[in-house]
């Protein structure tokens, strides 16, 4: 493209900057307000500065079962992440060839993305109810989360294998590598950064999922269910403190995955 930039460029840059403020402004605001003094409220002005509300979070009586639900959410997100990576990778490999029902399975995967979450939640809840099994966060809720994370994982793998250079595999085969060796030493290192992306989606989408957990999590709350319960009966900045902590946690996971992906990318390009 030529170097010509009309007056539209300035306007669009301002628009984009405003959009980023719109995206992040509220989150930054509650991060500031979570350091309210002990007498502070849900809005400005700041009534002193303290970590009172963060400390409050860890006292059993202030909020529900914060520690327990946090631990459950992390475990559920981790299991969802591992299963999402493995199942999406396998499905991605399968879709490289045409097989009977491959179209059906693909449309089913897309449907999983489009069906409203509350339907999945209600359906799984009813299914367990009819069969007479108690729903649990590590069983029914795990399945519910996978219906949301797997489509993203499969679509990412689709994009990856569509751009994959098959001649690299052929070269490995010509050099006498077995299919397993080709996969392990050629394919896997090249797609590893994308697999980290799938893992990131699997973890964070599960960690923050609310609607799909609602009827499938059973008697023990995950963190989003706990937070939702708090919104109806907690009217202090402890809500912001919790929001800030869980957002920071998400950011740490994102940065961690980004760093790993970049490192793997560097190693892949060296090969």
């Amino acid at each position: 493209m030529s170097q010509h930039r009309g007056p539209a460029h300035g306007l669009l840059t301002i628009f984009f900057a405003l959009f980023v403020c719109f995206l992040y402004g509220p989150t930054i605001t509650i991060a500031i307000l979570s350091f309210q003094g002990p007498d502070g409220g849900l809005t400005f002005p700041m009534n002193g500065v303290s970590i009172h509300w963060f400390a409050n979070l860890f006292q059993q009586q202030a909020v529900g079962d914060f520690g327990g639900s946090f631990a459950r959410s992390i475990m559920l997100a981790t299991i969802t992440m591992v299963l999402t990576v493995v199942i999406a990778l396998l499905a991605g490999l399968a879709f490289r060839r045409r097989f009977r029902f491959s179209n059906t399975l693909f449309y089913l995967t897309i449907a999983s993305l489009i069906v409203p979450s509350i339907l999945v939640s209600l359906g799984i809840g009813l299914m367990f109810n009819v069969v007479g099994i108690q729903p649990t966060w590590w069983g029914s809720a795990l399945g519910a989360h996978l219906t949301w994370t797997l489509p993203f994982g499969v679509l990412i793998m689709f994009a990856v294998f569509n751009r994959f250079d098959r001649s690299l595999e052929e070269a490995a085969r010509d050099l006498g590598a077995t299919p397993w060796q080709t996969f392990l030493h050629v394919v896997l290192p090249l797609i590893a950064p994308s697999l980290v992306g799938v893992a990131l989606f699997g973890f964070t989408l599960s960690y923050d999922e609310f609607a799909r957990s609602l009827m499938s999590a059973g008697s023990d709350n995950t963190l989003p269910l706990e937070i939702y319960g708090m919104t109806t009966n907690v009217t202090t900045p402890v809500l912001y403190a919790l929001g800030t902590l869980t957002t920071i946690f998400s950011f740490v996971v994102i940065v961690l995955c980004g760093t790993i992906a970049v490192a793997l990318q560097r190693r892949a390009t060296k090969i």
Partner: protein
Amino acid sequence: MQPNMKVSGARASYLQASPLAVILGVFLLIPIATIVVVSFWDYNEYELIPGFVLQNYVDALGSAVTWHTYLATIRFAVIVWTFTLGIGFTVAYYLAFHVRSTLWQMLLFQLCAIPFLTSNIIRMISWIPFLGRNGIINQALQNLHITDQPLEFLLFSDFSVVLAFVHLYTLFMVVPIFNTLMRIDRRLIEAARDAGAGAWSILIDIIIPLALPGIAIGTIFVVTLVMGDFITVRLMSGGQSASVGLMMANEIALLQYPAAAAHAVVLLLTVLMMVWAILRVVDIRREL
């Protein structure tokens, strides 16, 4: 050797695809089938009674409340779609055509995408300091003497619901539209410019038609998310607004599962019809 390898290849594909098929079968297909079956069941305060009654559908479709709720939800979907499309297209257009360095393009794109990976509920809550009775906007308006009383409609109204939806879901427009814009052959635009086309006609005659598949994918995401939502409407309207999802959630809370199931079937059919209509207008297969 060749035919033999093909057979084993097909078998490998089946094995590799089976975990995905099993999960979607058990946690998507069977649950939806369960909803359809239960929507024909009877119930009382204590239990579900298996059977085949049409009463749930008669109740659901015969009540004026249902129709009003559907209209209200579709209204939300149309308003949110308009805003997310306008903002999402502008952002994607800026990233694709006005950011020159690939590195900056990727960084700014990720800056837009990261909030998607954080908690929706927290992102809704974070509007309280802005919209509340004593929130930032009301304080600013009063300090500037634009209003002398706090505006009550900012929080807990249709306005705050739409604002939260746009805040949460614009990303679902940005990503697919950005994808299609990046695939447009830049030589096409240069050729148009050499032929004397202005920036505006390039946008209308070349870029937007080529971006239609991305717009369609974004539209499917936004419309289905808004149609099925209940948490945003409940939290942001404080119970003032209605939506189909919220109506279902209320029935679930009252353990009226067959009634909720009938609403779920109607909702599913509505959403599928909307998606079908979008796919009739725009061919997205090229994008998959």
